[in-house]
């Protein structure tokens, strides 16, 4: 029973971590593939007050003056060569507009991009469901629209649409329809060539932000800080931009781990009970072994070995069970749209899940067997034998 409990506990521990971290990883991939690891936007200037409070402990951010957008993107990109973790950059001119089809109109956010640069810092190419990035690149007036935008205005690839900004309006050709799975993006975002965007918004210079991809995404916070210091522009790391969602995933992971740890804990209690019963039932045998010269440690080892065998066998079975269930649920159909797009359960295969499950089981099982083992070792053989003989 204890063995089965440990195996199930370890197995479900792994499955829980695999699927929670699977969804988390998928979400991270989605946000990195959409908005990049670091975004460089508004320039800031230190005010007199921030210059005065020169203490390293002072929060100078609240005393900065911000100037919207990136005025000289080429200079910034040149400066980024000093950050070795930077893998790619893409300038983006972003503004609001409305899109009209013969049937309907919708409010949108236009992202003016250089396609070849942008596919280097995002997964736009892979997110295109209809049409293609090549078609967009070959069409000077081409646009790529979000799936929900397309749905709303009933536009298809090859259709002609009008994008309007105040009195200015231009006609564009739909070259592709993309889907990130993030509703807030898919229902408003439209990509067009940077030159077209400059013309539409009458902004011949500067960009709204620079999207940066990194070789090591986990260093994004440190790199963002470095970039801020080098460029005097706000640089935000993906962990900070998506903090609220990442916290939700973290909470799920902790809650899930606690829940499945309970299975292992209950199995551990079962094992403790079993071993404690064995100690009670085997007091005579323990006393006899002690009378033959077996030490307290020898007696203790018998029960610790029993625990170790349950631990090793249970953990191995748990690993196999966890891997089998993880594999099984990865093909379970599950349609999710909203924060990312998937049609199946998402799992993450990581050796660390097995390590965490093994460590948790080891702690619980060893504690469960240690107490009965110590009790067995403390038995005084004379007391036991005299008690039985009388």
């Amino acid at each position, binding site marked *: 029973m204890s063995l089965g409990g440990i195996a199930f506990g370890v197995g479900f521990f792994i499955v829980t971590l695999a699927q929670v971290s699977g969804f988390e990883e998928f979400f991270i991939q989605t946000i990195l593939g959409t908005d990049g690891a670091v975004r460089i936007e508004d320039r800031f200037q230190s005010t007199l007050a921030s210059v005065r409070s020169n203490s390293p402990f002072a929060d100078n951010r609240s005393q900065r003056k911000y100037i919207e957008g990136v005025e000289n993107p080429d200079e910034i990109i040149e400066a980024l060569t000093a950050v070795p973790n930077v893998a790619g950059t893409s300038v983006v001119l972003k503004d609001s507009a409305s899109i009209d089809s013969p049937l309907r109109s919708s409010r949108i956010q236009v992202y003016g991009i250089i396609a070849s640069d942008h596919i280097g810092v995002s997964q736009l190419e892979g997110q295109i469901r209809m049409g293609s990035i090549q078609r967009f690149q070959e069409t000077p007036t081409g646009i790529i629209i979000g799936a929900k935008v397309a749905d709303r205005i009933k536009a298809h690839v090859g259709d002609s649409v009008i994008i309007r900004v105040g009195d200015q309006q231009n006609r564009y050709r739909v070259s592709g329809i993309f889907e990130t799975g993030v509703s807030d993006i898919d229902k408003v975002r439209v990509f067009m060539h940077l030159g077209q965007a400059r013309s539409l918004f009458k902004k011949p210079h500067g960009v709204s932000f620079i999207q940066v991809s990194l070789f090591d995404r986990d260093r994004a916070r440190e790199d963002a800080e470095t970039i801020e210091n080098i460029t005097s522009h706000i640089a935000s790391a993906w962990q900070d931009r998506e903090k609220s969602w990442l916290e939700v995933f973290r909470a799920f992971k902790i809650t899930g781990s606690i829940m499945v740890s309970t299975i292992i804990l209950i199995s551990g209690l079962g094992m403790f009970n079993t071993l404690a019963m064995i100690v009670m039932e085997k007091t005579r045998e323990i006393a006899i072994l002690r009378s033959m010269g077996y030490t307290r440690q020898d007696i203790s080892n018998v029960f610790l070995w029993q625990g170790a065998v349950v631990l090793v066998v249970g953990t191995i079975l748990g690993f196999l069970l966890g891997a089998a269930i993880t594999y099984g649920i990865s093909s379970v159909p599950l349609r999710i749209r909203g924060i990312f797009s998937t049609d199946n359960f998402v799992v993450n295969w990581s050796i660390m899940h097995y390590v965490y499950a093994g460590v948790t089981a080891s702690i619980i099982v060893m504690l469960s067997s240690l107490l009965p083992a110590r009790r067995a070792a403390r038995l005084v*053989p004379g007391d036991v034998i005299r008690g039985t003989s009388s």
Partner: protein
Amino acid sequence: MSEVLSHDPTVALECRGLEKYLGEGASQVHVLRGVDLQLKRGEVVAIVGPSGCGKSTLLYLLGLLDRQDGGHIIVSGEEAPLDQDGVHTRMRCRNIGFVFQFHFLLPEFSALENVILPMRKLGVLSAKEMKDRAQSLLDEVGLGEKSMRLPSQLSGGEQQRVAIARSLANKPHVLLADEPTGNLDIKNSIRIFDLLTKVARENDQATLVVTHNPDLAQRCDRILKMEDGLIVSEERLNDAR
């Protein structure tokens, strides 16, 4: 401390002024009141006395299975220190064999494996040597043919004979037996007792037997009578020693 004790190499077991209390507070009982005792090699000594006089308590103290409240115990020339369980355990393993009223064989192991257990702990012999010795001990107690049987497949007398073989496994200098025939019929009692005394004399072991049976006590070299926590009289039956 040890100057009060004998260094005579013929002495296998000795105690001086052994004191033991059981219970606590108002219910505390002074079970042993300064017992002095000496056992020579090859000598078989019986302790007799009424129930509750302290016979078994004395036996367990001498076997280092319990801790005395006063006095000294010396086994094969080595004094047993107070409060050193590791030393007591080692001394038991090397020098002391036990036979109890119940056989206390481990039910999951065969007769042969039960006899091997003390040897395995001592760790002097190889696996084959241990097996051979266990088999020869079982032959000696007349159970050579049944060495692979579990204790549950043996009769009460046979189980007790396996227990005797087990007690002799490490060739102890001292054999302590607490009512070894208390659970057997008369025929088996005499057979077991004779076996015990025979192997003790053959192996030059000091044997101390607690018994209620006066007929069996008469087969020993000496009879010590205990009353109220003290040895009150001694009867020598065999002057050879």
